[in-house]
């Protein structure tokens, strides 16, 4: 957990690598290339980089056209614009034809920080998850981001990758094997399981440490692919620990918590608590303060765990 890197920075690095390896990789941005880090690709491969200006709908449609020409387009902007502004283009031009387009959105969740609620996407996982043909990936750190982007490039079809603005702890090393649709257990435990995604996975690991100190054995399951979700890993955790706390930097409606609730409700009802943004918009502030404000800290996860254990 020593080094810290923002997932968007890892994205910029791996895009430049992919650009060198595969001449079919093209990148589009909507006037945010410095922020999304697609600028690193643009500098190396200017002929394969298309700045579409502040016009996300056209960016997504153009990406679909490039895919129809056999290219592997990565289209990037902030999550709120990629999923919000361009939702119907993502649905009609990308997902419906199963176009080989990768929508890689940065600045997701409340940790966008100072820009405030207008720019903090807390519903994008839910929206993308509901679209047929769409794969939804939320990496936890820089290492996983690079592997996920490579997996997305190798996969033929639409993928939504959700990245963040701020530096997050590195959880994985290079030996980690990422596969679309596969989760991973980061820590074993028998009393309950944290099922987490994105930057909340590190919070869940920290929460499990705290709980270990008071004699509670918490499993930590990381779910990078929210769709298709790793059902067997989550069902096993439910059966074996009997209580699940989900954790995401996203609304508790329709995201990871929603997906887990759907799964458990149908196949293995156990005690469940969804930690996330409680059906409200974000607000301006420093990222670390906002994590506290919205109850996304390890202490909040500990509290949720204790609540469930009290019901056991």
């Amino acid at each position: 957990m020593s080094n810290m890197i923002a997932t968007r920075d890892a994205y910029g690095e791996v895009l430049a690598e992919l650009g060198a390896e595969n001449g079919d990789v093209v990148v589009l941005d909507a006037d945010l290339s410095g922020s999304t880090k697609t600028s690193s690709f643009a500098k190396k491969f200017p002929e394969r980089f298309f700045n579409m200006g502040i016009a996300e709908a056209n960016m997504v449609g153009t990406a679909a056209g490039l895919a129809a020409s056999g290219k592997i387009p990565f289209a990037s902007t902030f999550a709120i614009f990629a999923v919000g502004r361009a939702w119907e283009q993502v649905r009609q031009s990308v997902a419906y034809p199963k176009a080989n387009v990768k929508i890689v959105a940065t600045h997701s969740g409340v940790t966008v920080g100072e820009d405030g609620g207008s720019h903090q996407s807390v519903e994008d996982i839910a929206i993308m998850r509901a679209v047929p043909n769409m794969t939804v990936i939320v990496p936890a750190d820089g290492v996983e981001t690079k592997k996920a982007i490579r997996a997305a490039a190798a996969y033929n079809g639409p993928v939504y990758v959700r990245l963040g603005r701020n530096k997050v702890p590195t959880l994985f090393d290079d030996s980690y094997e990422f596969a679309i649709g596969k989760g991973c257990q980061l820590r074993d435990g028998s009393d309950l399981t944290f099922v987490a995604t994105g930057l909340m996975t590190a919070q869940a690991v920290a929460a499990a440490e705290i709980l270990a100190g008071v004699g509670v054995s918490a499993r930590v399951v990381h779910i990078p692919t929210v769709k298709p979700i790793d059902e067997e890993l989550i069902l096993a955790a439910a059966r074996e620990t009997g209580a699940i706390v989900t954790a995401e930097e996203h609304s508790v409606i329709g995201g990871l918590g929603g997906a887990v609730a759907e799964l458990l409700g149908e196949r293995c009802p156990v005690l469940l608590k969804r930690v996330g943004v409680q059906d409200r918009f974000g607000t301006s502030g420093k990222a670390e303060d906002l994590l506290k404000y919205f109850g996304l800290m390890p202490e909040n996860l500990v509290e949720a765990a204790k609540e469930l254990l009290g019901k056991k």
Partner: protein
Amino acid sequence: MKDKIARLQEKARKLRIDIVRTLHRSKSGHTGGSLSVIDMLTVLYYHKMRHDPANPKWAQRDRLVLSKGHAAPAQYVALADCGYFPKEDLQMLRQLGGHLQGHPDSKGTPGVEVCTGSLGQGLSMAVGMALGLSLDKSSNRVYAVLGDGELQEGQIWEAAMSAAHYRLDNLCILIDANGLQIDGEVAKVMNVESIGDKFRAFGCHVLEIDGHDIAAIVAALDEAEQVKGKPTAVVARTVKGKGVSFFENKASYHGVTPSDEELPRALQCLGDCCD
């Protein structure tokens, strides 16, 4: 060339008959806009475009994006007639189990490049295709067919801006300007004129033609091929429902199909007396 024009005119007449018969059978679909755009599609599929019905994914093909996807019947009858799929498939237009969806779907229909029909989105995809062909140093061209009502969608202008910005001279935009949309006259619902001035201001080479004059369509597409450094927009003035007198210029025939009673009269208008 005169013979060629006459042959294309005759082909367009026959395709109109196919449109009317297909829509009468399906009892669902868009008649007016299919009849207004068919002359342009005829010139594209039977004269201008390099394509191979036996090999729909041929790398050296020109591309057509029917952004006004509700005119799908016009594209379908042309594709079937060219041999992309059996003409019998037309009987399953809009039916469960058929591949001819209400709006063009590239997943199931050979010869359809992308999914269109949600208005405003096709030009962006055409821009992406043109960029892709440029990257591949291909000499192939992209034709995007738009409706005039569709120009009310803001995304069209985002796409037009980007087409000119990236100097896509391999892109030709055809606007089927029939002047009508579902709720009535385009000029009254939300005026889009001057279409030509708008595309010119956005950086396109602009041509204005009679969209039912086969020779004019051929000439416009020839001229578009010679334009360098910018896309061409052909504003084709057309008549909604063209060819069937009692459909012509009627917004009410936007999404209505010929009834049993109307079919023989419609076919008679098109010179098809065999029914």
